[in-house]
């Protein structure tokens, strides 16, 4: 006869072991390494105190640019993804016959890995845009991804194309949960489509906005694959984002200690933003 403690370890033990080895221990070790001059190869991780952190904010000018670029990207793409996702959800819940087909079309990009999506758009921006621009004489379409501006918007377009279908699915579920009686009542009271949208639909889908904002915000901050395959961080590292900067600091410059200090700042940033955002969005939600 096993004790209940014994059964507890049998059921929870294996996955807890993996979780501790893969997530928890590396997290604490990571914080430790961020105060050392670890080079990743041997185990000579000498304690250097706050040196890495000081270096990030004083000598490493690139990090601040990377951070600002990432933040700017996150803000713009969060707005664009959720706005497009919500509009698509409104569009496909209007009961048109093509709705089912459209849902699939909008969701499709989401299935494909970020790396592959980045390569696809690299072709479209550099070859497709260029060809159309040349043919129609639109200078704006030419030379995409060759500078910071087009690289930035390239990433935003790619990310919006990829993720708005996912958000659409979440918003569809939320829209379908709104009782018809509420909308009918508003109609009887003389509300037009726009008024219904502002006063009934949007407040009632607010919980879905919380989730949508959380998912897009953390995904935008953590973006790596798409960044790597679309622009590779170029030209001159000007479209490099946080995740890529950490990778490069470690593996290209073999400065694991510095990279780990950046990773700790990254962790704190992502966690702080997510928690704050969830806290404020939850406060704004309306109970149905």
């Amino acid at each position: 006869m096993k004790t209940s403690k014994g059964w507890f370890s049998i059921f929870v033990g294996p996955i807890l072991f993996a979780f501790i080895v893969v997530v928890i221990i590396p997290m604490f070790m990571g914080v430790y390494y961020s105060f050392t001059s670890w080079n990743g190869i041997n185990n000579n991780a000498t304690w250097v105190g706050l040196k890495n952190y000081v270096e990030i904010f004083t000598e490493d000018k690139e990090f601040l640019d990377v951070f600002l670029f990432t933040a700017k990207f996150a803000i713009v793409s969060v707005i664009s993804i959720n706005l497009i996702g919500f509009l698509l959800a409104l569009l496909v819940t209007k009961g048109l016959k093509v709705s089912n087909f459209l849902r699939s079309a909008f969701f499709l990009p989401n299935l494909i890995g970020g790396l592959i999506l980045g390569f696809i758009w690299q072709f479209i921006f550099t070859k497709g845009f260029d060809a159309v621009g040349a043919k129609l004489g639109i200078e704006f379409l030419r030379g995409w991804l060759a500078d910071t501006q087009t690289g930035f918007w390239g990433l935003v377009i790619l990310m919006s194309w990829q993720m708005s279908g996912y958000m659409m699915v979440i918003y569809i579920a939320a829209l379908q949960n709104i009782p018809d009686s509420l909308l009918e009542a508003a109609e009887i009271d003389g509300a037009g489509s726009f008024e219904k949208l502002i006063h009934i639909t949007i407040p009632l889908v607010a919980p879905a906005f919380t989730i949508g904002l959380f998912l897009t915000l953390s995904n935008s901050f953590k973006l790596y694959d798409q960044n790597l395959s679309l622009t590779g961080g170029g030209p001159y590292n000007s479209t490099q984002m946080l995740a890529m900067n950490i990778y490069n600091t470690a593996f290209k410059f073999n400065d694991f200690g510095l990279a780990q200090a950046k990773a700790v700042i990254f962790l704190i940033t992502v966690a702080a933003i997510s928690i704050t955002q969830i806290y404020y969005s939850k406060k704004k939600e309306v109970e149905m």
Partner: protein
Amino acid sequence: MKNKNKLSLWIISILSGLLFLSPFYIVLTNSFKTQKGIFTDVMGLPKDFFTTNNYVEAFIALDFVKSFTNSLLITVGSSLIIIVLSAMAAWMLVRTKTKLSSFLFLVFAAAMLIPFQSVMLPLINIMGKVGLLNPGGLMFMYLGFGSSLSIILYHGFIKGIPKELEEAATIDGCNKLQVFFYIIFPLLKPITVTVSILNVMWIWNDFLLPQLVINDPKWHTIPLKMFYFFGQFSKRWDLALAGLVIAMIPIILFYFVAQKHIIKGVTQGSIK
């Protein structure tokens, strides 16, 4: 008035659908063109420049059968382990009302906020030391990273299952493992479908972790192979595009087979 509205709605729908699908059109049509054809006419259909050679060459260069098998093995293997172990853990966490169980659940949930990049360097260091930089180690790491979301989803579902069945089975002489595998696990089927789909989509497409873990080319997964393939043929868009199409086919087929479940899974997965 109503009809006019409907018409404009219809037009907007079709246009946005076409806009969303146009990247696939461009990639697909150009993948059948020669290199010269791509540079001459990007937007048109292949016509004079038609070739299927790209596909043959890309298929070989990607070592597709091998990389597909590797991806399949790693994805299915990791997903299965995640499913069984996270369901077991979630059930025990729900049914054991102690401080420890609620603390553990909280830690699993909070770990969702940890970005991979903040743990990857020490993780690779540890795994290298114990000799786990191979497919087995990769699956173990997927288990660790997949645990949070899977346990949260199972946890939520199990809370809604009445205890009486389990109690009856216990009285009949089943031990906990028997109760779980004979009674509980079959009841979890709906949420198991969701958990599998979310894990499969994520692991199948993952690039960074395999890149860090898999050094031996014979174990390269599709995204990994695609990355090196691109580096090697960066000037050959004809091959590269055919390669992209080949790499996309499995997951798109999977989508058309499991569409309903995928959409449902995504919805359930996000409402935590």
